[in-house]
């Protein structure tokens, strides 16, 4: 039989997180700090709208780009929160989670050989999606000493004449790093000068602590060269609904809609109706959840520093990214032993890129009681292994 497989797909290694998942799921009664999704249920008024839409028999396809009312409300929301203005008719597409938006944005823009700059550690899909879209991923290794922000110099050093796209993902999964207005201003100059396109994954935009999220698309000259990706999963605790969106210049959006039209048809109708309620009336829920995460964030950072581990203060998302180099173990060793000895699940930093070596991702999307229990066990572990 002939080889049925595509070379480029085979060349992509399976997600590092997946490997660890298989080990962890065999462990009975393990406590986990490994989850990348909110612990809150979707607020009831949002779920109720989804249920109502089903009762009303709204069980058909929507237009490819999404329900008009949802697109209008998304535009209102982006304007209200981040001073971004988009035309609901031509510059918004509702997608199956932020993940689909990442995929179709890359596919709409890349030619074979085009280089895509991917600052790591980062979410697991950027690199494989770039390869699947025919592009060449170029990793930029972010540094702990820069609080995992992308610096102007690192960006400059990575640009070649083939560089086309920069993927920015702040607030960041897995580091919890953010880039504020000044940080962004530094790189915006380079982006404009080198004529790059930006895919800005702002899925955690509602989860910043202490300062409001700034979208890179709000800088002068950036709107026409930025695809902003956002969604409902993290802000409204709606991961299972699979609902996200992308906004950007019509020139690119039009092509993204074409891919979406043929590959997906439309985002789930029930989720879209629930999404209208979320984006219209969900601000108090977001505030409540942000407040809870912020408390846990302080608690976790305090506990980890109390163990004598180095941990920079994360101001976004719901992760902390402590450094474990002082223990003389690799990330994977640490995570595996912690699981075996104390039955606590954390994700090795290397699951998010090679430069995550020496770090762990700890999620604080858990109740304080759960965090306390897990961190107590982790403390025992660290004390035992400190040489």
């Amino acid at each position, binding site marked *: 039989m002939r080889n049925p497989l595509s070379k480029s797909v085979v060349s992509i290694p399976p*997600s590092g*997180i997946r490997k*660890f*998942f298989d080990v*962890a*799921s065999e462990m009975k009664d*393990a406590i*986990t700090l*490994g*989850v*990348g*999704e909110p*612990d809150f249920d979707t607020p009831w008024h949002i779920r109720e709208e989804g249920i109502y839409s089903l009762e009303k028999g709204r069980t058909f396809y929507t237009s490819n780009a999404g329900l008009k009312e949802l697109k209008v409300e998304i535009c209102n929301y982006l304007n209200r929160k981040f001073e971004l203005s988009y035309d609901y008719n031509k510059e918004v597409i509702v997608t199956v989670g932020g993940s689909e938006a990442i995929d179709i944005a890359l596919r709409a823009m890349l030619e074979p050989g085009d280089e895509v700059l991917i600052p790591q550690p980062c*979410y*697991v*899909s950027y690199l494989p999606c770039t390869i699947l879209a025919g592009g060449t991923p170029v990793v930029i290794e972010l540094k702990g000493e820069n609080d995992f922000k992308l610096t102007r110099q690192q960006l400059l050093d990575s640009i070649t004449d083939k560089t086309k796209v920069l993927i920015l993902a702040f607030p960041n*999964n897995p580091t919890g790093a953010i880039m504020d207005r000044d940080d962004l201003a530094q790189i915006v100059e380079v982006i404009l000068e080198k004529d790059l396109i930006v895919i800005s994954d702002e899925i955690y935009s509602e989860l910043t602590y202490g300062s409001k999220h700034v979208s890179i698309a709000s800088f002068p000259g950036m709107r026409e060269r930025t695809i902003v990706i956002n969604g409902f999963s993290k802000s409204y605790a709606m991961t299972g609904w699979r609902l996200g969106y992308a906004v950007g210049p019509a020139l690119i959006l039009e092509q993204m809609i074409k891919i979406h039209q043929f590959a997906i048809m439309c985002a789930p109708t029930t989720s879209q109706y629930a999404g209208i309620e979320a984006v219209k009336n969900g601000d108090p829920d977001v505030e409540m959840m942000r*407040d809870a995460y912020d*408390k*846990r964030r*302080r*608690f976790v950072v*305090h506990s980890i520093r109390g163990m004598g581990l180095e941990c920079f203060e994360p101001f976004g998302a719901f992760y902390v990214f402590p450094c474990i180099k002082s223990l003389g173990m690799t990330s994977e060793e640490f995570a595996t032993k912690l699981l075996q000895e104390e039955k606590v*699940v954390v*994700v090795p930093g290397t*699951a998010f890129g090679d430069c995550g070596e020496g770090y762990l991702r700890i999620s604080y999307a858990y109740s*304080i009681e759960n965090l306390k229990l897990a961190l107590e066990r982790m403390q025992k572990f660290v004390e035992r292994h400190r040489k």
Partner: protein
Amino acid sequence: MREKILTAIDKNSKQSVADLAIMLGTTEEEVTRIIKELEDETIICGYPTLINWDKVQCERVTALIEVKVTPQRGLGFDKIAERIYQFDEVQSVYLMSGGFDLTVIIEGKTMREVANFVSEKLAPMDAVLSTGTHFVLKKYKEHGLPLVQTKHDERMLITP
């Protein structure tokens, strides 16, 4: 900070001062001082425990009583409300708008005990014009917390 502390302990008063200080980004001294202030000003009036008595093998009934009263000159409803809330059986008393004046929530061991309280203590008061007693059959949610279902984490162990 006062409001932050109140919101933080509203649904869980069991948290230690040390934890609160960490979570709110302040010092233990400040949390202790503010809580003391809030107690002194009777903004914090107590720290009861939310118990689902239905799950315990001991009889307990709750009744909600609608009470119509005659307000007293110069004292309004406060005087009569106080006469009512002094009884140990009374859990809550609210002044209401609408068809009646006071909502009185009574807890007793048996229905008879509650009935006796109404007929012997509450109804005969001079200012009380009428009462309407409603027994609670099942409690679903109290103080913003559901009493019935226990939730478990349905998320996978690890997700990206």
